[in-house]
């Protein structure tokens, strides 16, 4: 009985770290770069599928799938986003909506590789080479490491050259250009980093849940959740996604006990609206403002 309980909490802990990592990857693009992608689930799904296909179809260690996933998502991200950069603000976001839909269609139809709508089940063969573990604790360590990796990268970008350039491009492209910033390069770099980190999350998900099908990994709800966590926690801050996940993921665990899909997502939607309308700076952002206002008399 106690192991079951532990298992439940451990799972929540693992998912909290995973969501924080995914949201953190999105935060780089959207919070710092102002490129509000609504299609992160495409990268997530590709990462997951690459891992699963490489392992189940070819028998190669999923670590290669990880590398493949990173390469494919980074390449695709660069190619797809480049023509979209000339769209500003919301139109860029609308364009990103298209990508996961297209990927879901591809996944549903490339039956030879993806087994179509029935999805791929990954056989349980524990080992470091397969990145499958008997104990949830191992997964927790890995998820935590991923979360810290994303946090670390964000901190490094935060007020470094890339971070300053991103914020300049986000705030005012004309001014950024007049200061010699190569706008397209800056945007491409952040999109590729974001895509790669999200693909890693997909790799983790595949080897953790051991099952994936097109709707579960390409769903728009993943994109909604990722965005929600950063907004609630604090968009454009390194700690925001972590705070957001710490608040929302356990809550989601509780909610899913009582509510099914529709009502639960409804609550998410309302939470998103409330965050946007009432506390757009998120928890971290509002705390920083409050602290700053105490300095001035």
């Amino acid at each position, binding site marked *: 009985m106690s192991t079951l309980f532990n298992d439940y909490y451990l799972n929540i802990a693992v998912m909290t770290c995973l969501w924080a990592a995914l949201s953190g990857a999105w935060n780089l693009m959207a919070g710092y770069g102002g490129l509000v992608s609504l299609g992160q689930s495409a990268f997530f799904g590709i990462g997951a599928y690459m891992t699963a296909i490489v392992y189940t179809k070819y028998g190669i260690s999923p670590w290669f799938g990880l590398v493949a996933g990173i390469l494919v998502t980074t390449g695709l991200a660069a190619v797809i986003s480049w023509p979209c950069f000339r769209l500003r603000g919301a139109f860029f976001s609308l364009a990103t909506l298209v990508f996961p839909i297209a990927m879901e269609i591809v996944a549903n139809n490339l039956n030879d590789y993806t087994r179509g709508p029935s999805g791929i089940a990954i056989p349980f063969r524990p080992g470091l080479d397969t990145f499958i573990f008997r104990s949830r604790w191992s997964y927790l360590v890995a998820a935590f490491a991923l979360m810290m990796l994303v946090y670390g990268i964000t901190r490094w970008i935060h*007020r470094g*050259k890339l971070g300053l350039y991103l*914020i300049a491009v986000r*705030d005012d492209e004309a001014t950024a250009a*007049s*200061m010699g910033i190569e706008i397209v390069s800056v945007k491409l770099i952040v999109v590729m980093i974001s895509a790669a980190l999200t693909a890693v999350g997909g790799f983790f998900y595949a080897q953790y849940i051991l099952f994936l099908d097109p709707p579960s990994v390409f769903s728009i709800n993943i994109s909604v959740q990722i965005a929600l966590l950063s907004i609630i926690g604090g968009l*454009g801050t390194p700690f925001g996604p972590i705070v957001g996940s710490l608040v929302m993921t356990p809550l989601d665990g509780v909610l899913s006990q009582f509510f099914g899909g529709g009502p639960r997502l409804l609550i998410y939607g309302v939470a998103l609206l409330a965050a946007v309308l009432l506390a757009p700076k998120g928890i971290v952002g509002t705390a920083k403002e409050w602290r700053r206002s105490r300095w001035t008399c």
Partner: protein
Amino acid sequence: MDMLSGAVSGKALMHASALVLRFGGLVAVNEVSLTVADREIVGLIGPNGAGKTSLFNILSGQMRPDSGSIRFAGRDLTGASATVCARAGIGRTFQVVKPLGSLTVHENVTVGALLHHPLVVAREIAARIVQRVGMGPLLQRPAGSLTLESRKRLELARALSIEPKILLLDEILAGLNASEVNESIDLIRSFARHDGLAVIMIEHNLHAVMSLADKVVVLDYGRKIAEGRPEEVVRDPAVIAAYLGSDG
């Protein structure tokens, strides 16, 4: 006061030739040619709507001319993008001052300094520039919270941070009171002399233009109608007519 020939080193830093810019049916810039020598301060004046800002937009790469050419520091920059122009050494302030609001004053200027320096060095250089424009105490202030005068100083600091060879100042004195204007004039003169910058300044403040400029160019309805020493240009009847308007 430097004589025109004294300030000019004899070599053209920027040479714009027969630039034309059209907006639909309107010709904003009509066959304008302009030469700026090394370390020369050029005043660009003319009534509102004469095409001065449009000319700046062409020179600094925000807009592409429909015809004409631009040579700068030995390179052909005709139609080059704003980024390329900035990297080539053309610095610019904007008429509507928009600092990068999410960043502090220091960070705003660091962004420009990063063009030629790594982060740590860029930060130091930026701090020094901020000091030189007289905004030392405001170093860590968020740029969005500044007064107009401070924002104009910041705009100047930002333009300087990319270590340009030429500075395009678009009405940098507008909205400032008399003492602020005088401070800014001194500032511009010191930068031009000590850093060896050429300057083109769009100004309505004729006193400032008279005291700073080696040469004045006058635009009206997109065409250049006069060019020469400030004292001469101000007495040119065509120039007077342009400012007073043809409706006597």
